């Protein structure tokens, strides 16, 4: 299935589509207000972009430095070439500790690696603790948004889920009471967990420390209680210095939700006394992406989700229409790199409006990359041969003004004489979604001009 087909399904419920759009638009507005309130916003974006590009250019150096300094602080550093290696490392650490009850806070990386099904298949109970992630975990689906995993769901749907799974009263859909029910259930799980897994927002090469940002405090409960903490991160999360952190922290939450800062910005330097900290550095396609000049820049992403909130297509098609771990504009750049043929339609799910480039806190030129992907993925799109042929034919016509003018005249003539019913059949994508045929003029501009000048 293509993105267009899944988007079409999403739009079959126009009321939900409208609600989804309005919901994400309000996040865009919150972000706008927060950005406007920071006088040096553009300078911050510029600085963040420069730091990220520098770090990515010197990534091996900073990774080696980070490893050395994290070790000096007592953390154990692991390296994983791919998802399977990452999952095996995590599983091994849990087994070694005899942990079968594990809590996890939000990590797009473990989502990317498929850690949950991997561990569940091996008898280890892994509970997602971010409320949105817990909701989608209970529904056995993937997050539809990287910051707001359950943004596609109405409160009544969550109420029904919690009634079935957590025993809340039937019909209860008050967000505060549903949250309380989840809190009560998850508090018990935090207290009973034998290990906590977290993602990483930033890793500081200079200090060997990691930074985790949450609003709920779930990463903190998950690391303050169980003795074993496993932090999983992509190798692109490095920044050189602690003094670079404020540049990113001032951008991150404002871009994501319009908050000045998340409720908790936790810095972990080594394990707590008596505990263990393991850091798993994961490549899983990142080094390959970095070697591609057109797309390497996408590794600068700090996962704020602002490109999703502003994207007019995402708002109207829903995160699941991307059928990918990371949806939206940044996902449409990252996912084809992982699996080109499976995600070939994603770069087409974009009007090239350019808003994502303007909101991106690290100034990734997403439209440019999406455009680059379109050319490269042509071989994987449905009817690739026909499209190639059409492109070549169009080129031929446009390279010969007389051919172009003659074909234009013929097409206009046909459009004027053929019955509208024929012209606006199901085959015509222009009229299929509810557009009328354009009004067809008798003469083209050039013909009219020639006539007047005669």
């Amino acid at each position, binding site marked *: 299935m293509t993105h*267009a087909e899944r*988007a*079409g399904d999403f*739009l079959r419920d*126009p009321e939900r589509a409208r609600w989804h*759009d309005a919901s994400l*638009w309000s996040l865009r507005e919150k972000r*706008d207000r927060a*950005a*406007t309130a920071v006088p040096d*916003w553009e300078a911050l974006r510029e600085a963040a972009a420069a730091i990220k590009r520098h770090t990515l250019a010197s990534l091996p150096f900073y990774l080696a430095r980070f490893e050395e300094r994290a070790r000096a602080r007592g953390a154990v550093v692991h390296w994983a070439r791919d998802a399977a290696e990452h999952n095996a490392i995590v599983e091994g650490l849990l087994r070694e500790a005899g942990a079968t009850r594990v809590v996890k806070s939000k990590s797009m990386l473990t989502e990317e690696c498929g850690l949950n099904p991997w561990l569940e298949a091996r008898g280890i109970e892994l509970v997602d603790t971010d409320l949105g992630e817990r909701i989608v975990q209970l529904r056995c689906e993937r997050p539809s948004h990287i910051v707001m995993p359950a943004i596609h769901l109405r409160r009544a749907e969550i109420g029904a889920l919690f009634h079935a799974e957590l025993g809340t009263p039937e019909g209860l859909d008050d967000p505060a009471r549903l949250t309380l029910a989840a809190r009560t259930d998850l508090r018990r799980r935090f207290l009973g967990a034998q290990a906590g897994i977290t993602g990483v927002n930033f890793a500081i090469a200079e200090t060997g420390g990691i930074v985790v940002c949450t609003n709920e405090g779930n990463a903190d409960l998950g690391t303050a209680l169980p003795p074993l903490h496993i932090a999983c991160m992509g190798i692109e999360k490095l920044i050189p210095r602690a003094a670079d952190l404020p540049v990113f922290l001032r951008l991150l939450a404002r871009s994501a939700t319009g908050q000045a800062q998340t409720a908790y910005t936790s810095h972990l330097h080594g394990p707590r006394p008596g505990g263990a900290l393991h850091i798993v550095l994961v490549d899983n396609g990142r080094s390959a992406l970095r070697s591609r000049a057109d797309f390497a820049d996408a590794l600068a992403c700090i996962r704020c989700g602002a490109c999703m909130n*502003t994207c*007019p*297509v995402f708002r*109207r*098609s829903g995160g699941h229409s991307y059928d990918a771990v990371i949806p939206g504009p940044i996902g449409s750049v990252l996912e084809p790199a992982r699996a080109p043929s499976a995600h070939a*339609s994603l770069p*087409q799910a*974009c*009007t*090239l*409006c*350019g*808003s994502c480039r*303007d*909101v991106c806190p690290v100034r990734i030129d997403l439209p440019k990359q999406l*455009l680059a992907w*379109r*050319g*490269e*993925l*042509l071989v994987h799109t449905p009817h690739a041969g026909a*499209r190639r042929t059409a*492109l070549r034919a*169009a*080129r031929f016509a446009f*390279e010969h*003004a007389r051919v172009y003018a003659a074909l*234009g005249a013929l*097409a*206009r003539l046909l459009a004027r004489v053929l019955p509208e019913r024929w012209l606006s059949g199901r085959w015509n*994508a*222009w*009229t*299929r*979604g*509810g*557009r*009328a045929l*354009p*009004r067809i*003029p008798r*003469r*083209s*501009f*050039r*013909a*009219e*001009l*020639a006539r007047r000048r005669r």
Partner: protein
Amino acid sequence: MRVGLFVPCHVDQLWPEVGLAALDLLERAGARVEFPTDQTCCGQALLSAGGHDEARALARRFARVFDRYDAVVAPSASCTAMLRVHHPLLLGGAEAQAFAARCYELCEFLHGVLRVAPPTHAFPHRVALHAGCHALRELRLGRASEGGPRGEDPVRALLSGLRSIELVSLARADECCGFGGVFSLVEDAVSCRMGLDRLADQRAARAEVVTSSDPSCLLHLASLARRHAPELRVLHVAQILAGEKSA
């Protein structure tokens, strides 16, 4: 100054009035305008469909056809963005860059280069100005609601001289209309939803006329309006500025 008028292929074939109004405005402003008949298409649709090589060939051809002019002016912000931003990327080199710098959107050229006085005839209508994404975020004519570089919006500047015109404010000042070139065909469901949302916003503002510097957005909106909002008139800004005859 010798001005080459570029009339984009979809305007040439589907909306000749826009080309005529643009020509009229440029001539009235005293420019020496020519329409080189060898011109065809800037290649934007091909590029957005993934045809980088095809678009590059057309970019090369375009530069050849328009090389002799001091300025290239088009009544389309989107096609101008193709000329100014994407042609130099496709072709590379200082020459392509210099040529790109001589390409202008019509209102940008009238207001910013020729510095014409805004027309003052009467246009007693409530008008919704559709801010095209490429005018805003590639040519930087105006400022996008999410921030970014700030530029002057020549369309607004020229329209505001008209007598009795009322520019309405929209709930979402610069939301994309959903045209997007090949997007309108590949993703027709989302494309139409986006266009209908724009029409709803414009109707809620009690607009009688929708206008823009981007004819492709307008063709998409007009096709939707014909089915869903027949009372809305869709006019290219050149038609309004050129006056009664064209509008």
